Structures are given as C-alpha cells and as structure tokens.
C-alpha cells in the first residue's frame, strides 16, 4: 500500500491514503487510527499526541520534545506495511428520527420534488441507507455520515440557513449530517432526532465516533417528545442505542 506523508509543521503530519471519498480508503484511515491507538496502549510510538481521522487521511500529531518526524514516520510506515486489519472494531448505532412533523422536516417536500419521488419514498430511502461515520469535525460532535441511498443525492442548498435547530437530521451529496448545536447550515432538513450528539454533562460528551455504523429508526412525535424529555433530564439509557 502506498501512502503519502504530508508535513503539517513540526508537530504533525498527515498520512494520505488516496484522493477520493470511498469506504475502502476511509476504512484504511480508521484502521491506522485504531492501530496507532493500540500501539500506544502497548507503550509504543512514544511522543505521539493524538490522531485525527478524516475522509481519506489521518493526521498524526506529536510532541517534538519527545520524538521527531524522522523517528516517527518509519514507525508508522512499519505499522502500515505489517498490514492493517481490514476493518477496525465498529459499533452499530441506531438513531431515532421523527420525519413526520413539518417543523422538523421543512425540506422534505422539496427533496421529494427534486429527486422525483414521494416524500414517503425519501423517508424510506433514508431509513434503508447503511451509513458509516467518516469524520467528526467543523464543530464538536458534528459527524459526516456517508452511505446515503444514491436515489437521494442532491447538492447542498444554494442559500444556507442562518439557523438550523439543534439535532436536525439533514442530507446532501452522499451523506447525512445531524447538527449537534443550533448553527448555520446548508443541508436539506428532513427530520429531527431527540438525541443530542454533544452533551457536556455526559462522561463521553460526543456520542458518535468515526467508524460507527449507523441506521435511523422512524419514531412518531409522541415518542420524540418522550425521548427528548429523557435526554434533557439525563435519564436516557444510551446503551439501548448502541450495539458493540
């Protein structure tokens, strides 16, 4: 496997696996992320600070007081040439989503019109998509989740919204995104989850992790309100949403 090493100053470098967005390339990124984590847990790779996965590359940050690029890059190279596991350990996460309230899904009709299908078929397409979290970024906990059913591919909105409500479920291109905070955004809003992707009261404030497999489960407004109350009160049993 040939990778490119890109310099990010004297405290980081990026290991680039390719120049496309694909499950294979992202799988390699996640495998190296996992392999470096495992090596560090065994006491190897001294001086590595953290690794930052993205679509097609992994940034490795290091402490130049504890190691150097010249020492570290061959060690990373050796990890890669020893062979990365085909897929790192993943979790399967179910996200409850309410599509049935116009307040939650202001773009559902427009998406249906532009993809030439009924709103109900848009919802079905979203529900049958096999999603994988590719990268977290832009804001804490915001996950770029690829794997949208190809029948629903659309570019982003030409006019981004100034305010997208927290926990909005949206689609654009081949991805779905759930907003962890109220923020500006240009994606098509087709539903809302009662789950908070970022909750600083929790020991693990960020719910999703890169590599998670993810499906959506349709809920009605009543269920949405019930789960919302549990999330707000901090009483939701989050483990019911996750299978290791």
């Amino acid at each position, binding site marked *: 496997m040939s990778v490119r090493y890109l*310099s990010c*100053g004297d405290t*980081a470098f990026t290991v680039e696996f390719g120049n*496309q967005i694909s499950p294979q390339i992202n799988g390699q990124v996640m495998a190296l992320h996992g392999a470096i984590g495992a090596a560090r847990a065994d006491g190897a790779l001294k001086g590595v600070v953290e690794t930052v996965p*993205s679509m*097609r590359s992994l940034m490795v940050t290091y402490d*130049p007081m504890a190691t150097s690029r010249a020492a570290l890059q061959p060690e990373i190279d050796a990890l890669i040439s020893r062979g990365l596991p085909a897929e790192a350990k993943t979790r399967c996460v179910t996200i409850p989503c309410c599509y049935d309230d116009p307040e939650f899904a202001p773009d559902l009709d427009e998406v249906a019109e532009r993809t030439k299908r009924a709103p109900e078929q848009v919802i079905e397409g979203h529900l049958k998509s096999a999603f994988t979290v590719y990268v977290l970024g*832009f804001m804490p906990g915001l996950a770029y989740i690829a794997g949208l059913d190809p029948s629903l591919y659309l570019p982003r909105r030409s006019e981004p919204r100034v305010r997208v409500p927290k926990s909005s479920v949206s689609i654009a291109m081949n991805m779905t995104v759930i907003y962890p905070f109220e923020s500006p955004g240009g994606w098509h809003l087709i539903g809302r989850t009662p789950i908070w992707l970022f909750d600083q009261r929790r020991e693990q404030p960020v719910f999703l992790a890169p590599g998670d497999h993810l499906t959506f489960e349709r809920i009605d407004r009543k269920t949405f309100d019930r789960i919302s109350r549990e999330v707000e009160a901090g009483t939701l049993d989050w483990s019911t949403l996750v299978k290791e």
Partner: protein
Amino acid sequence: MTAALKVLRPGLFDTLQDRGRIGYMALGMPTAGAMDRIGLALANALAGNPADTAGLEIGVMGPDLLVEADSVRVALTGPLSPALIEAPDAPPKPIESDRSHLLKRGQVLRVGMIEGSSTAYLAVAGGFALAAFMGSLSTYARAGVGGFEGRKLQANDSLPLKFDHAPPGEECKLAAPFDYGHGPVRVVWGPQEDSFSEQGRATFIGADYRVSKEADRMGIRFEGPTIEHAVPVEKGGADIISDGIGPGAIQVPGAGLPIVLLADRQTVGGYPKIATVASVDLPRLGRLLPGQTVRFTAVTVEEAEKLRRDQEARLARAIADFQPARPAGGIDLARLYEENLIDGVVYEPVPA
C-alpha cells in the same frame, strides 16, 4: 466564604486557558488552549504552579478583579501598561509585569490595557477551583465548554481559587524579558503546497502580510498580495477533501489570502493549506495585533523541530534564572509594610 477573584469589570476577552484539550480532535473537539504558551508557562512558573495549570488569558484589555481571599499570589506576563493595585484606603500602585505579586483581601487588581501584544496572562498560585471538561480547563467559547461557564468573563463572575492563603514563598521576577524571536515567521511547506503555483508560493514567501481586523483565537486573516492556486479556483483549485488541521496551518481559500489557524481552529477543513507555522513561532502569532505586518520564511521540518527544542531549553533557563523581586540583600520594605504594618500581625503561612 469561598476564596475567589471577583470580576468588577470584565476585559475584552478574558478566558481561562491551559495547554489545551488534548486527545479529542478525533471527536471534532478543537484543542483550544493558550494562544501564547510561553506567556502562560512563565506566568505559571512565577506563581509557583505546575506548567499545566490554567491561567487567565487576557485579550487586548484586562479585567478589574477584587480579591476575596485572605491573600493570593498572582503573576502577570505580557506588556501591560501597567497594571494597578488599588485598596480602599491606599492610592493606586502600579505593578510590574513579568513578576509575582502578593495581593490581600479587599485589594483590586486593575489589569488594564496590553500594549504591543494582543495577549497577556494572569496566573494565581494554586490555580482556579473549577472542574475540567474533557481533561482541560481551556475555554472553548463556541461550544460553551471549559473555563468559567464555557465563556469569557463577565461582570460579577466569581472565579473560585484553590487556596484561601498564598502559599509561603518569595516574590520573584523574570531576569530579562523573554525573547520571542524577530524577523520573518518560520513556516514549513505543506500539507498542500502542491495546490499552489510556483508563482503563488513565491508570493507567499516574498510579500508582507498585514493582520486584518478578523483576528481572534480561531485564527488570523491576513491582507496582502493574493496567492495563486495551481488549478483555477473556478475549477476547484481551492477545494480539497477535508483533512486534519494542525496548529498554525495556513489555509488559502479561493480569495487567495492566507488565514493562519490557531488555538480554537476547527479540527478538519476543506481548503488547501500552503504551509504551517513552525511551533517555535506560534506564540508570536498568538500575540499579533491587527495592523501588524509579518513576512514568512520556509524552514525544513528538522530545522523547525530544532528551533522548538532550543526555545524550550531557553524557556527552562529563563525559569531557572528567576530573580527575587526585591533589592538584592536588602529588605523588601513594601512587603514588610503590606504584611506586618497593615495587617498588624506577622505573615503566617498556611501548611500546604
């Protein structure tokens, strides 16, 4: 009563910062942390704190703080103009930066303006009694986490202190101002230098760039000659598949002007990054003010690593060479006056 520093009047952008929230970039959590790690390290050392203690980062203009503790040792670093100590029954007394000071209950520290830098630090001995979020006290205001309620300080905030008494010890000062370095800002090419034409790279290295008004903890937008991308912008030359953003990454969006990304930068981004500021010069970037001009010069990764190690060695020496903050061999009359005459009792240290 809980020991605290009470904010009588906030500064422009006072936030608690430590060395940053390390290990959570994979979850999209920016590192945050001190914009000038040297200033924070010196303030902590002057206050007798471990280097990873959180201090108050002061942006442009500092707060007025009322001491609500029996005593507190504070250390200020950065070019203040100068700070004042006021007490209800005494005239305001100017105090120096780059040293520690012992403050008493009821005194007010007026930090005031910073001159010639955007950033200064206040450390308190023992640190602030606040809960860390994801392992760090660094404030990341965009997500409302860390520091004091996840935001910059406001009037009437009460910053709880770990100690109600300053630990025993002498006041000390920096022997000479720390040399942050001069001349062009050192950068390492990449990660995406190949997204720029040869002419674009020459422009970046050869021209003066001025700090615009859009400069904050997230980054600095520079003004100057535009940098040419290798592929025309309308054909996607300013777009890459998003990847990780290291500290000091210099991204160049379609408009062709460089943006240096600093402490509160997002974790990943989709603009090509022509170069990355060498870590030795990040503290200088963290102190730049709008209107100031810089030039960039390229060094290799190895050179940048060596520059950083040399700087850390100089920092360690500067800390080892702290001087007592009083006339050599003499009696600190001011301190004697403050501690014995005003209080009427001999200073009584509290066991640590």
